[in-house]
């Protein structure tokens, strides 16, 4: 018996403390049975709520973030007719235009791929213990703790 891929050992949610390439993540989602692929990218914008931003820092509670991220991808794989899904989230210092988060989903059909990709990024934003520390053009900086 040859185990080509063991479900337990594949990480579907990854925290990266440095800039990462999308291509090697995307290619792992390609399958001959998948006709649709949807990806989301979150970039660092030059403003937030009308305030000019210079950059930001993401901090994570690593153990819990990785566990919660895997749980979200598992939920997506169970709830939607998709083939595979991945998410990579940056930590550390980011500048304007840097890639902060990437989500990729492959599926036989586009409907499931769109819905699952949206589900994953929404859940990651609301549940995974990662915090954004923004630096503003006026010299101020602050943690973002959004109201529900």
């Amino acid at each position, binding site marked *: 018996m040859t185990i080509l891929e063991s479900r337990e050992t594949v990480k579907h949610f990854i925290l990266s403390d440095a800039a990462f390439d999308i291509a090697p993540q995307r290619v792992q989602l390609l399958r001959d049975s998948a006709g649709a692929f949807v990806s989301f990218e979150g970039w660092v914008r030059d403003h937030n709520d009308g305030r000019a931003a210079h950059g930001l820092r993401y901090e*994570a*509670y690593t153990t*819990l973030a990785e566990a919660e991220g895997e749980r979200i991808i598992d939920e997506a794989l169970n709830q939607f007719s998709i083939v595979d899904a991945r998410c990579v989230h940056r930590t550390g210092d980011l500048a304007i235009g840097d890639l902060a*988060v990437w989500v990729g989903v492959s599926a036989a059909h586009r409907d499931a791929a769109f819905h699952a990709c949206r589900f994953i990024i929404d859940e990651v*934003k*609301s549940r995974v213990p990662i915090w954004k520390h923004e630096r503003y053009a006026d010299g101020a900086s602050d*943690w973002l*703790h*959004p109201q529900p």
Partner: protein
Amino acid sequence: MTTVTVLYFASLRDAAGMSSEVIETNANDLRTLYGELQSLHGFVLTIDRLRVAVDGAFVGWNDAVCSGNEVAFIPPVSGG
């Protein structure tokens, strides 16, 4: 007395001035424990805006505080 390690993140870490501490407490549950630490460090975030995790998994506020626990209070997240 129970001895636990408490982890602080984001604005809680800034307010506490540290990323973790080992404390002795008489608190029976996590809700009471946060109340004690909120008084001690002057945390602005109220309990209704937080979640709590023990040993790397989310748990309930009424859960008991057990010796050796690693407790983390989770401020509203802002990833993505």
